[in-house]
Each structure stands twice: as C-alpha cells, then as structure tokens.
C-alpha cells in the first residue's frame, strides 16, 4: 500500500500545490500546550508535521529552536512523552504524516529497536536524524526496515549530485533539502541559486523534495513552492509561538498555507 507520506504528496500534487510541512518543537511551551498547538496547526493548513525532539545540544539549530528546546526540556519533555502525544495526534488526524525530527543521542538512549516499536505503535511515518549522515545511518536502517518507518534523508547546498544520489538510495518518502549553508533560523531572503539547487536535487535523488531552513514568510513559501514538492516552516512558527503565543503561530501557518494554495 502507498505510504501516508506519498498519499499526502500526491494529494497536494493533484491540487497543484506544494505540501506545507510544519516543524514544531514538541513540549514547547509545555507538552500539553504543544499537543493542542499541533492539532491547531493541522487545522490551519499544515499538511505534514515534523515532531521536533528537544535536545540539550542542538548543533544544527539557530537561536530560536535552541530556545524552544530549552523551554521544552525545562517543562520536563521526554521522548516517551513525545511518542504518546504523537499517538493522540495520529488518532485525531489519520491522514496527516508525522515525522520525528531528532538528534541521534536521544534516539540511541531510547534504544533503537524499542524506538521502532514505539514509532509504529504511535503511527509515526518517518524519522529524520539531523546528525546521522550517509556514513553512519547503517545503524538505524534495520530498525526502519523492521518497523516500516521511512528514513528521511537530508541533502545540503554542499552536497554533490553524486553524493545526493547515494543519499537518496533506498529511501522512499522525500528528501529534505537544506536551502542554506548554515543552521536553522528565520532569514530575510533565500540564496538566488536555490531554484537551481532544488531542481538538481530532484534530478539526482529521483524523489520528491522538501525545502527547509530559513523559509519565514508567506511570500518566501510561495516562491520556494514553485521548485519544491514540499516547503518546511520551522523557526518562523516556533519563534512566533515563543514571542507572541499560539494564536499568532497558528495564524502565521494559516496565512502561509493560504498563500501556497
């Protein structure tokens, strides 16, 4: 059977638009409030959710996601709690793909086999591990195969087409294209060569591409959606949540979703 991620991307393609993927740091500001927020983000037009697992040392993240992670950890957020939240989101939104977005150490500590079983039970579709490149991902592939979890690979502007092709090998959902050389965070503009890079990644990977990092406004999302199958919004939503609260964050996602339709 076609995977939930593929069904989602196909549905969006049929509507002649890109999918809107929203990253949320689970547990920020509290586990309960973030659960409610995620339901609202989906209702506001998020097609897919990245469940961000907070980590004490988020080396690939800018100040906004760092701060959100610290808030979530202070609120006592743990991976088992995140998986319980995921299960309830799944029950309420049976067709919205959920991807766990994490640093490796938290997953390793949970135990990879136990993680696979828990992800499957919760109805999580995929896992994206920021610090597990091609060279090391052999550790997690057996778990993904055994439990039917899609491993979402990452490519960056520094990745050569040859390497991108290798990275996509064996993966099936989509490939996450990092749009900028740098960490996550709100940016006022995207690199001019981005369109070319996204097309090149599509060619090399032969998979749908999701563009993420730095996409902050409805205008930017619309612009990028011309070249990507999915557009990821993270820091812009999380920063709005931290500074202006959940209503403002939901309304930002609503206007980005509206702009992409």
């Amino acid at each position, binding site marked *: 059977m076609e995977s939930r991620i593929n069904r989602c991307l196909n549905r969006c393609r049929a509507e002649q638009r890109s999918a809107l993927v929203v990253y949320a740091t689970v547990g920020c500001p509290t586990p309960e409030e973030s659960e409610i927020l995620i339901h609202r983000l989906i209702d506001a037009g998020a097609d897919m959710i990245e469940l961000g697992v907070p*980590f*004490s*040392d*988020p*080396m*690939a*993240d*800018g*100040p906004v996601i*760092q701060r959100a992670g*610290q808030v979530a*950890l202070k609120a006592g957020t*743990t*991976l088992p709690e995140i998986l319980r939240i995921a299960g309830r989101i799944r029950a309420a939104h049976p067709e919205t793909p959920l991807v766990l977005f994490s*640093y*490796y*150490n*938290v*997953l*390793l*500590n*949970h135990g990879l086999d136990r993680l696979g079983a828990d992800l499957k039970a919760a109805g999580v579709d995929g896992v994206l591990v*920021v*610090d*597990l*490149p*091609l*060279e*090391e991902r052999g550790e997690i592939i057996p778990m993904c195969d055994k439990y039917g979890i899609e491993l979402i690979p*990452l*490519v*960056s*502007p*520094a*990745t*050569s087409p040859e*390497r991108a092709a290798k*990275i996509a090998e064996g993966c099936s959902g989509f490939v996450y294209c*990092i749009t*900028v*050389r*740098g*960490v996550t965070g709100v940016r006022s503009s995207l690199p001019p060569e981005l369109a070319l890079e996204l097309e090149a990644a599509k060619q090399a990977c032969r998979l749908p591409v999701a563009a993420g990092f730095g996409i902050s406004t409805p205008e930017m999302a619309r612009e990028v959606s011309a070249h990507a199958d999915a557009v990821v919004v993270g820091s812009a939503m999380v920063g709005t949540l931290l500074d202006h609260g959940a209503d403002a964050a939901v309304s930002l996602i609503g206007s980005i979703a509206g702009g992409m339709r």
Partner: protein
Amino acid sequence: MNSHYGIYGGQYIAETLMPTLIELEKEYLKAKDDPAFQAEYRELLADYVGRESPLYYAKRLSESLGGARIYLKREDLNHTGAHKINNTIGQALLARRMGKTRLIAETGAGMHGVGTATVAALFGMECDVFMGAVDVARQAPNVERMKTLGARVISVESGSATLKDAMNEAIRNWVATAENTFYVIGTVAGPHPYPAIVRDFQSVIGTESRRQILEKRGKLPAEVLACVGGGSNAIGMFSAFLNDPEVKLTGVEAGGEGIETGKHAASIGGGRVGVLHGCKTYLLQTPDGQIVEAYSVSAGLDYPGVGPEHSYLADSGRVKYVAINDDEAVAAFDTLSRLEGIIPALESSHALAQAIKVAKNYSPDESIIVCLSGRGDKDMDNIAKYKKSREK
C-alpha cells in the same frame, strides 16, 4: 582512514559539513605523506614551540614519596605554556594548504584558544574563538592574551555556557562558513578525521618521551600517566607506548567533588555511551539522553565527553582510567610548586596527584612518567578562590 575505534568515533554530524570532512581527510592524508609539509611542521615545533621539551627527573618529589623515580614531560615549557600548540600549528598548516583564510576554535580553559590565536597571528589568518561565558569570567588572563594576539573572543551564553556550548557554537558557525574557514578542534574529539589528526599532531609528546626515558634509564617506564578531559595530551603521550605491554598506561579524569556526588567530569568513570559533537563515545548524560554539565575545578577538564579512542582503550583494558577529585589535584598542585619550583596547570595536577598516589608501589629503580601538559599561571586566581571557599 578508519573512521571508527571499535564502536566509537564516526561522523555524527549534519550533512552540510560532510563534504568538508571528506575533503579534510583527503588533504590530511596527502599532507601526512608530504615531506615538505612534515619538514615545515617539525621546523616550527623546534624553532617556534621550542621542542623537544625536557623529560625532567623530579628528584625531590620522588624522594619525598620513597618509590619510583618520577619524570615530568615538560609540555608546560612549550611556547604559550601547554601542549595545545603542537596541534594548532599542525592544523593551521593544514588550513593554509587547503586555502582557508580564517580559523575558528572552541576553548575551555583558554589554552587551546591561545594556541589557535597564536598560530593565526603567525600565519596572518583571521581568528574567532568561541568560549563559554562562564569560562570567559574564570579565565580572564587567557581572554586578554587571545585579544592581544588579534583574535576575537566570542562569549557563548547558550546552554551551560561552558566548553560544550562553545563547541556547539563553533560548529554552528562552521556550518555557515566552511568555504573559507577551518575549524581547529582542540582535542581528540569531534567527527572523524579530527580525533586522528589531533592524535597524530600530539604524538610528538609520546615519541619524545619514549626516546628520552630510554636514553636516561635504559629501559621503559613502569607507568605513564596523563590527565584526560577530551584527552589530547593523553593520547599523544600514550600513542608511543600502546605496543609496549609492560608499560602501564593510566588516564586521569576529573573527579570534581567525587563521582558519587554527580559533580564531576569523569565521562569514562561515570558516563554512558552516546553521541555528541560528531562522535560516539562515553558521555555524561541523563537517562533520556540529554547531555549534563560537567564539573571540575579545572576548566580544561570541564567537558562532558571524551575522545572516542579513549573510550575504545578503556573498553579494551589497555589504558586504565581513574578519577582524581578537586582537593587531591589542588594538593598535588601545591606539592609540585613547593618541592620542585614548578607550578603545574590544574589539569596536569590531576595526573600528578595519581602519580603521587601510586609512586610508592614501585621501587626506586623503576620510573614513571607524568605528562605535565601545561603551566599553572592561568590558575592562580582559581586556586585562591577554591582555597578560600574551603576555609568557610
């Protein structure tokens, strides 16, 4: 190159940095076999750093303990006052070879920051040093030294504002700047090939020590000791003795206020396997896999991880790892200062304290070597503060 030490090491890092690491490994292998590169490195070690460093027989210390002859490998006499410069010179030469014009570094006690700022000045490169705000406050003299050398010191407020956070911030900066920037990692941690590169540049410590002790004593030492934070002086020292099974090797971690109190920096003695800063190794962490703050009176050992090769050597049993607490290190600091007229770094004082503990187990015709990885001038304020807090 093999990127792992048993199950440890590896390249657990964002994809954006992988092409840079692959290029670095390729360039390093070429440099390693390039006689011109090696000759320039050796010449700088001799004429700029002042190598070789003496292997000094600490006679009064040895006699006061009534056991083995204790020899000190005097890395404290290097230019800039610690072993760190052996590595920063090597990496700066690599950076220049790769056409990079800017160096970045993380630093805890400030010695690696000073070492990097020094070579940046020497090679005319731009230099940014990331340092936790807590360390900026407790290592003020080194901050001034870096600034004098022309480096910018960036105070890192995130997380626990110590060495691990400085390393996070250096990596974040590097992700965005790798095209013109070389990240000079100060210890045998980080993603492959860094642990191997740093070990190779620090191996001069062990190579010299082994030759020197054979010249002086006609036989190998019974035991070799070095302090372990990330563990670069220790790997450099041990590397020459790994194939001498008769030589006992001891790595000394910072026990802080005692491993049982939870306030320590002993990743091997009190940690579990995990992944941080690009490598799999022993780490101080919660059951949920969140990294916890390390603690030691010595800023240079205040790191919640350890080089992956140490994790491997610990599991294999070739190196024994022990912990020395703050009070024992401070006592050793005083002992060496008073008996030998040498003020050791607080980091090195940990290795020294363990040597003082075990010296009497050996006979006077046996020798032990302690890596005196740095000088203690930078620690005077801290020692005074520490002693004052104890009086209360």
